[in-house]
């Protein structure tokens, strides 16, 4: 009895694996010949007598459906390879990476024959425009509707500006220097520190504030960022002394998203 149950469970896992594999072919543009059709069909055939309830039979049908899609992809693959347009995708990618954009543009212009098109107004759209124009309220009436709140001019106190967060309590540059010292402390012994390990804190609000401050550290030359594109990790490297950015060098912006999900993920990672 338990052997039967074990066999069923194994069969379900195999079917789910087949479905996932076929799905990934389409989603990730993989080589469809990665799926050995004979082999997967024999697996489906082997477990078919085990399936009794509708749920199991649906899973079996889904696997067969996915295999049919994989076969279709294989046929398209062969068709494409037999056309004169087929070139090794890696070769094209390599060329695109190596060639400067000016040269890629020049090549493109040699194969580009733009369509000539003239746009004109039709009687129907003209009629529509007249209707719209006639229904428009005169400008002076529209401005009346918008109105506006009349506020008397006056002066604001330092406390009011602080409350509205227009000015900071501490002087910004002093705060930035303090923050830089903290970065150097944390990176002590290593030359860099992972971005999230530096900006991440217990609360989301504080994390955003630290990310904001870090952006100034980088902009004002107190630190720099290093991106490991393979691992998708960003590091901060503190400088011993601030390095002003040479005027001639073009600045590169690096947007870093600090969403609540990113912060939750980081917290989860730290816990583990």
């Amino acid at each position, binding site marked *: 009895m338990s052997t039967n149950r074990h066999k069923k469970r194994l069969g379900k896992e195999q079917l789910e694996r087949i479905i996932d594999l076929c799905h990934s072919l*389409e*989603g*990730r*543009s993989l080589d469809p010949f990665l799926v050995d059709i004979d082999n997967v069909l024999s697996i489906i055939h082997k477990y078919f007598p085990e399936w009794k309830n509708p749920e199991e039979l649906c899973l079996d049908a889904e696997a067969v459906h996915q295999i049919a899609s994989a076969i279709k992809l294989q046929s*398209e*693959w062969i068709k*494409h390879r037999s056309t*004169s*347009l087929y*070139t*090794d*995708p890696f*070769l*094209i*990618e390599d*060329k*695109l*990476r190596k*060639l400067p*954009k*000016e*040269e*890629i*543009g*020049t*090549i*493109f*212009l*040699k*194969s*580009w*024959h*733009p*369509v*000539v*098109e*003239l*746009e*004109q107004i039709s009687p129907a759209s003209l009629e529509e425009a007249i209707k719209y124009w006639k229904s428009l309220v005169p400008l002076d009436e529209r401005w009346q509707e918008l109105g506006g709140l009349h506020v008397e001019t006056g002066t604001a106190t330092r406390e009011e500006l602080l409350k509205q967060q227009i000015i900071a309590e501490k002087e910004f540059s002093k705060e930035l220097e303090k923050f830089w010292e903290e970065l150097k402390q944390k990176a002590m012994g290593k030359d860099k520190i992972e971005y999230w390990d530096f900006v991440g804190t217990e609360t989301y609000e504080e994390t955003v504030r630290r990310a904001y401050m870090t952006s100034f550290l980088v902009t004002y030359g107190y630190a720099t960022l290093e991106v490991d594109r393979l691992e998708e990790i960003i590091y901060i490297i503190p400088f011993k002394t601030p390095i002003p950015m040479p005027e001639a060098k073009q600045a*590169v*912006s*690096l*947007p870093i998203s600090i969403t609540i999900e990113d912060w939750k993920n980081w917290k989860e990672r730290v816990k583990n």
Partner: protein
Amino acid sequence: MRKKTFYATQLKHATHMLFFKHHRKPGVKGWELRKRLGSDYPKILALLNRHLEKLDLQVKTVFEEEKPSEKPTGAQLDKARFYITLSGTLTPKETKMMGWRIDDIAGLAITISTIIAKKGKVAREEVKQLLRDKLPGWRVDFSLDRYIRAGYIDQDEKGQLYLDWRTRAEIDEKTLIDLLVAK
């Protein structure tokens, strides 16, 4: 004489139909031309083509499926779409005047050639990776959206990019790939 007048009139009709946009997309379907110009419309288009050649323009036929290897049938022509395109090519200066910077052109070339190389379909993320090598980060999504709006590419609900009508009408795909490989 009457025959000459007939062809001159039909030539004008064909010019009006092909140069002016009647639908959301430019171009005219074969069956629309047949309805207006009669079943002899391929002959009128050939005549128009001869006139356009002098102006560096041409009548471009884009078949619904792959270009037939032999003479196209009436049904294939009816389903095809006809456009007036430039016969020659543009210089970088001219494209700039049309509102296409070298960044835009290079980005479009990268996008289209990647899609062709990957059998006509590729994940948007994959194209973005390639574009980031050549364009400033903020321009990548902006450029892809522009190519979609212009009709060069389209995107499905799974985030896969594929070629759209304008690429088929304007780009000589084989020349593009051959020139890239030859570099």
